[in-house]
């Protein structure tokens, strides 16, 4: 339902289709039947948010509950925001057109740190008080989940309640508790105290923090009955775990505009820089039957002609070829394509290649992450140069001519030699093309290398590591550029400035709340977009708050430091992460979960690969 006041603005902004709702499969309910109104907010624009699988799952799941109406809210682009503010139109949900302020629960998904300013801006656009302590009533409860909730501390002042881990069960439990409190006119305080007893719920206002003189945390104490440690929630049986049979199908083109089936969760690998590889343990697979059924339902209900088999590493699905055969038995007739977004260097077999090729031809992307074997051992990326060359040779033989390689710059122990190694490896891929007997005729090869800057993340073996300073990263980027001698190699990188701020907020503590508030006061938003991000502005904000960002980004922590996220438990033990960190410095690799169990601690969750026989 688009309000007339909003319609008046729509022709003055770009892509008005972002702001109108009304898409196929969007859910409209009768407000009379509703006890809990839930606004699912994605702190980025429509095209990005609508591409996100987690949002689709929880949207459908919450709407299956008869007394809940879950609606979608996205951050408007600057042109629309300006119009809305000028005309006093609050940020609204796409289904009802009602202001965000009218909702019982306002839920955010936290996918990347640079969206935190948008979270504040979105609340502000609806006149919802930013700080939890300023929202006194039970309504306008602000909750958040998603990967960045693993270190919730920078948002502790604003978010009433965090979901730790996978949301499918705990969201519903909290909503049910909310309904009980709303019925009996309970207070927000009592509700939060009760909610904190639900496993996987973290209520930051129930904890007190003190700091040492050196700025590190001294004590972190729960008040009342709040648990000292918050354990993540996990959906052990993916076949039984809720998965939607339909997606909202957008009118306008979005980033990932296709049906998505999540084929597995977690990752067997344990790359030491990768947060997802640790926080989603243990590795669990969905059965072929369930995936097949879900894909059929989704295609049927949406009309999509492309299915993406998504996960952290889809080629690690143990029966990938069987799965593809099963799907292709009907997708070919239905003129439906299958795409595998995440392929490992060593997971690209001839057989797999033929299957992908049968369906869709596009560039191939692999992530060796580091340029030399030594550094790949340090990060536990168990991929060799030989494997990479074998893989690209397979691809060249199969007619591919574009290869994209992902690397990181600024990894622990990295030297200029390792940086050169990136260029060398890319060169070897180019050479492999020219030496290939069956290379595609009359075509030239293109090897893109994308080098992002390493951001140390909580719950990884590198959570204690300093990030390279921006100057060092720039020097390494220049060195990489001067090491490339072929026009067939196309380098690109993410801005080191953004990575620096990401590193600050990824490992930040509660004191960063003041920084976020000040950044918001100065009108900062959309910091994930280069058009908006300004390091200079951020540095000014930090200076005005008397906080040194380098303390968070560039400082080496000692193993005995009390880290801001130590009260959150993802199953993987801190002692294991320490061992892994030491092994990294000794250039020692660790086997993947399929080869051998390394006793990381996640087996306490009692499921997945930890309990399977090898």
């Amino acid at each position, binding site marked *: 339902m688009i309000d007339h006041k909003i319609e008046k603005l729509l022709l003055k902004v770009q892509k*008005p289709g972002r702001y*109108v709702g*009304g898409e*196929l499969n*969007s859910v409209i309910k009768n407000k009379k039947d509703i006890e809990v109104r839930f606004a699912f907010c994605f702190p980025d624009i429509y095209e990005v948010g609508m591409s996100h699988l987690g949002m689709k799952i929880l949207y459908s799941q919450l709407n299956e509950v008869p007394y809940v109406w879950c609606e979608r809210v996205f951050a408007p682009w600057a042109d629309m925001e300006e119009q809305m503010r000028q005309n006093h139109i609050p940020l609204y949900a796409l289904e009802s057109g009602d202001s965000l302020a009218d909702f019982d629960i306002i839920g955010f998904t936290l996918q990347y740190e640079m969206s935190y300013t948008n979270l504040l801006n979105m609340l502000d656009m609806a006149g919802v008080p930013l700080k939890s302590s300023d929202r006194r009533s039970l309504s306008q409860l602000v909750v958040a989940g998603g990967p960045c909730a693993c270190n919730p501390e920078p948002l502790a002042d604003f978010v009433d309640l965090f979901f730790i881990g996978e949301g499918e069960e705990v969201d519903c439990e909290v909503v049910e508790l909310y309904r009980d409190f709303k019925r009996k006119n309970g207070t927000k305080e009592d509700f939060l105290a009760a909610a904190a007893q639900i496993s996987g719920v973290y209520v930051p206002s129930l904890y007190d923090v003190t700091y040492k003189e050196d700025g590190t945390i001294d004590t972190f104490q729960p008040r009342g009955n709040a648990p000292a440690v918050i354990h993540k929630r996990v959906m052990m049986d993916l076949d039984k775990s809720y998965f939607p049979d339909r997606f909202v199908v957008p*009118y306008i*083109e979005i980033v990932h505009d296709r049906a998505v089936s999540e084929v597995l969760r977690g990752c067997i690998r344990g790359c030491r820089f990768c947060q997802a590889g640790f926080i989603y343990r243990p590795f669990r697979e969905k059965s072929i039957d369930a995936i097949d059924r879900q894909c059929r339902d989704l295609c049927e209900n949406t*009309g999509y002609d492309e299915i993406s088999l998504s996960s952290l590493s889809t080629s690690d699905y143990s029966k990938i070829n069987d799965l593809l055969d099963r799907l292709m038995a009907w997708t070919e007739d239905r*003129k439906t394509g299958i795409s595998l977004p995440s392929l490992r260097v060593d997971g690209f077999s001839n057989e797999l290649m033929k299957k992908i090729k049968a369906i869709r031809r596009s560039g191939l992307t692999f992530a060796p992450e580091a340029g030399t074997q030594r550094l790949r051992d340090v990060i536990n990326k168990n991929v060799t140069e030989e494997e990479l060359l074998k893989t690209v040779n397979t691809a060249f033989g199969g007619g591919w001519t574009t290869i994209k390689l992902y690397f990181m710059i600024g990894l622990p122990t990295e030297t200029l030699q390792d940086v050169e190694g990136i260029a060398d490896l890319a060169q070897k891929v180019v050479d492999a093309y020219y030496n290939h007997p069956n290379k595609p005729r009359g075509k030239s090869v293109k090897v893109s290398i994308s080098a992002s800057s390493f951001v140390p993340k909580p719950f990884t073996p590198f959570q204690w590591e300093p990030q390279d300073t921006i100057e060092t990263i720039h020097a390494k980027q220049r060195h990489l550029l001067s090491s490339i001698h072929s026009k067939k190699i196309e380098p690109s990188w993410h801005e080191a400035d953004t990575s620096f701020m990401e590193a600050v907020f990824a490992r930040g503590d509660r004191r960063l709340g003041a920084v976020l508030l000040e950044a918001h006061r100065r009108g900062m938003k959309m910091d994930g977009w280069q058009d908006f991000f300004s390091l200079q502005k951020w540095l000014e904000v930090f200076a005005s708050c008397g906080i040194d960002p380098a303390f968070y980004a560039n400082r080496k922590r000692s193993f005995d430091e009390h880290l801001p996220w130590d009260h959150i438990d993802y199953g993987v033990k801190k002692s294991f992460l320490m061992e892994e960190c030491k092994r990294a410095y000794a250039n020692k690799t660790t086997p993947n979960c399929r080869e051998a169990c390394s006793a990381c601690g996640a087996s306490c969750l009692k499921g997945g690969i930890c309990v399977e026989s090898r």
Partner: protein
Amino acid sequence: MKVVRIWFRKTGAARYISHLDLNRCMSRAMHKANIPLWYTQGFNPHAFLTFALPLPLGIRSERECMDLKLDDDVISREEMISRLNTALPKDLAVFDVTEPVRKPGQIATASYRILLEPENTSADELCSQIRDFFQAPEIVVPKHTKSGIIDFDLKPYLNQTSVSVKGDGVEMETLLPAGSNGNVNPMLILDALKKYLNLEPYADIERTGLYDNTGKIFE
């Protein structure tokens, strides 16, 4: 192979999607509804969807059409309508399927109803302001064409335009050239109001019909 003409409305939220988005939306609906489309042969087979005349973003219509090539004609008209409507959002509603009578190339004019909401004046005032303005010897606005932006005189095209007060607003009915032999977008009238009178009233525009050069409605 058989060509059918699908008639649909583009209203509400669908008013704000571009022609490109509409095209994708329709293709997806065909796929979802299992319509037996006829595909081109060759390396990258694709289906034929031809829209009679793309509707500019922001304009509503109760009577749009597109042509489809079907593989066979086993689906009845009713079946086709009902299948498509379950596959489409409610603001894109199919109401008829016919055999094409005229070719899209025969479209020569389009009629529009423009409802203006006066902002700081009364409807009467706005109405007479616009009527006076339409008496001007020329009304030149910038117009996007294939060869770039040109100065375009709208005046000669306004002789079939009426302006009247309707409730709290002002209603304009206009017939403008449309189709491949010169197309005049009704938004140009709004551009002119802004340029000459500094007026930016909210406008609800509906395309009410398409006609050939003898004035017969497009079927």
